[in-house]
């Protein structure tokens, strides 16, 4: 473990910013702290950097407790949300700052700065001032500046938030490649799950100052461990009365999370679904939204609104049309626990889910093409 957070607590007055936070990041790993705004992810990052002091708990970097070491002595690289480039210094001086304050010899500074300028493809811009750079260039300067003193750990606070959508996409890939090439252990904060999934090796999901789940992106997506994670990840639709749906009993559960990919809607003459049409129930299309690569259908099924995606390659549908709807599975939620629930009608016939798989991945199935 390169970084370990053990039982960290932090309050600002009566506001609990961190509650019993525990997680660790391995050497060379690129981790994302993912959570909605106000979930305490930036506070965690600032405590690691030493910009904020934990009320209790231990922060270990490379096995050493660093709680009492001030920010300037921790040797951590930090990329700020708005980059915080020094406005009255050139790109060169910005990158050199961390080396010159440590009184590094002049040629060592020069070599290192040029090495980083090359790495971040900023050569030729070293005499510019921050306000003469584009957003993407500024981010790269901030990155180079943080890396210059060769820190053991790199922290990035919403590194893409200040960029416009197009540049953001390009820079995600760039940053991921760059961090892996440098091989530095890194943690970045984001509220955007696409960003976390695309860039990070592992994800730490936070909510209300607590860590909800830690793991690989795929695992968090497929096996949410808490109600919050099941509601935060993917494109969740919350359904209160899910007992009205064929194949489900509400029981003690509070509500259910139904992702679009859990819902199948087909026309009654679709031969492909003839084996399972008896398990379906009628649903009326209330709204159709064109999402670019697919359609998003909102259906009213027995008074419950569900959402599904429909490939543009399938037969056209229109608002008001009656469809046959099957919900394959859903996440049932009680308090802060969540449980994957399979459609009991389908399960009766198909306890191993073998048939269902066949439908889903066959030519006309949900995941086809």
């Amino acid at each position, binding site marked *: 473990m390169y970084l370990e957070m053990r039982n960290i607590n932090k309050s600002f007055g009566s506001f609990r910013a961190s509650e019993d936070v525990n997680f660790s990041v391995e050497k060379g790993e690129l981790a994302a702290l993912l959570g909605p705004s106000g979930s305490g992810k930036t506070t965690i990052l600032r405590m690691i950097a030493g910009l904020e002091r934990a009320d209790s708990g231990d922060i270990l970097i490379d096995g050493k407790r660093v709680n*009492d070491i*001030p920010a300037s002595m921790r040797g951590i690289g930090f990329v700020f949300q708005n980059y915080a480039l020094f406005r009255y210094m050139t790109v060169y001086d910005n990158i050199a700052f961390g080396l010159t304050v440590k009184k590094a010899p002049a040629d060592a500074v020069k070599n290192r700065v040029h090495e980083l300028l090359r790495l971040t493809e900023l050569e030729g811009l070293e005499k510019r001032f921050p306000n003469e750079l584009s957003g993407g260039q500024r981010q790269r300067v901030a990155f180079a500046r943080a890396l210059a003193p060769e820190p053991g750990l790199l922290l990035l606070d919403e590194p893409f938030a200040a960029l416009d959508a197009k540049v953001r996409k390009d820079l995600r890939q760039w940053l991921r490649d760059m961090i892996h090439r440098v091989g530095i252990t890194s943690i970045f904060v984001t509220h955007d799950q696409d960003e976390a999934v695309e860039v990070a090796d592992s994800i730490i999901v936070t909510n209300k100052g607590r860590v909800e789940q830690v793991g690989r992106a795929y695992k968090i997506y497929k096996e949410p461990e808490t109600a919050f994670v099941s509601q935060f990840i993917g494109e969740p639709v919350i359904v209160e009365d899910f007992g009205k749906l064929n194949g489900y009993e509400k029981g003690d559960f509070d509500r259910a999370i139904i992702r679009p990919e859990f819902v199948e809607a087909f026309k009654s003459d679709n031969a492909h679904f003839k084996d399972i049409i008896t398990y379906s129930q009628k649903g009326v299309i209330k709204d159709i939204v064109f999402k670019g690569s697919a359609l998003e259908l909102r259906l009213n099924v027995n008074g419950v609104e569900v959402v599904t995606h429909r490939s543009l390659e399938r037969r056209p549908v229109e608002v008001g049309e009656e469809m046959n709807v099957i919900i394959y599975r859903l996440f049932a939620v009680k308090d802060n626990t969540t449980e994957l629930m399979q459609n009991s009608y389908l399960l009766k016939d198909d306890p191993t889910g073998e048939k269902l798989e066949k439908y889903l991945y066959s030519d006309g199935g949900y995941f086809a093409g």
Partner: protein
Amino acid sequence: MGYKKKKSTRFLMITVSTLFVGLMLFLPLVMVIINSLKKGFEFYLQAVSTKTVISALKVTLLATVITVIVNTVFGIFASILLTRFSFKGKQLLQTLIDIPFSVSPVIAGLAFIMMFGRMGWAAPFVDAVNNAFGWDIKIVFAVPGVVLATIFVTFPFVSREVIPVLNAAGSDEEDAAALMGAGMFTIFRRITFPHMKWALLYGMVLCTARALGEFGAVNALSKTRGETFTLPLEIDALYLSGSADSITAAFAVSSILVLFTVVLLVIRCVLENRSKKAQEEQKRR
């Protein structure tokens, strides 16, 4: 940055600041009061109710009221002109308007003497007007001169406060109102004025404070004690006569102005908070 070190810096900074303000700014204020009461309360009351002091108070208040009105009118027009329109020479006009701010008040007095005094080029005009209407208006060494000098010295005070606020507010709302067919006056009354309201009051308070206390410019233009003297001139006269009694009287008269100053500073503090709040609301919307 050490965690402990931070505390000691804080202590040092607060101590230095408090000592500086205490010794340099607060102590003089206290000293005025102490010196004014040196000869007892009865002496104090006598000192502030002499005929010359009452006359000076009247002149001071008159000059202040006229000055604040004139400079407020100017402040409103100038701030709208400089924030809502662009024209050739705008930068120059902006710089010129601030001149009184950085010019010695004595020069202001001198300027009016050179204009309306015995050798002034405008003196014949004043004489002509006086002859034509049978008036006897004097400007230099009379109350009108005192008023003019006070206006000059505090001229940019209101506009300086209003301009940044109007700039921050932007003209989107006014453009929108104009598109909906609102007239010039309606736009001013319903949109521009509410924006500038607090800053305007704030500027007026500043202007009042400076007008009450103006000395250098008025000193050059007013020579008759008991007639054209303002309070600061009366204080000057009392102080310079040099006897212990008259010096105490000078401080007694000063305490009147100190009272005005303290009241104005409190109003100013309140207004500053108000206008800050108003601006924050502006940003939130």
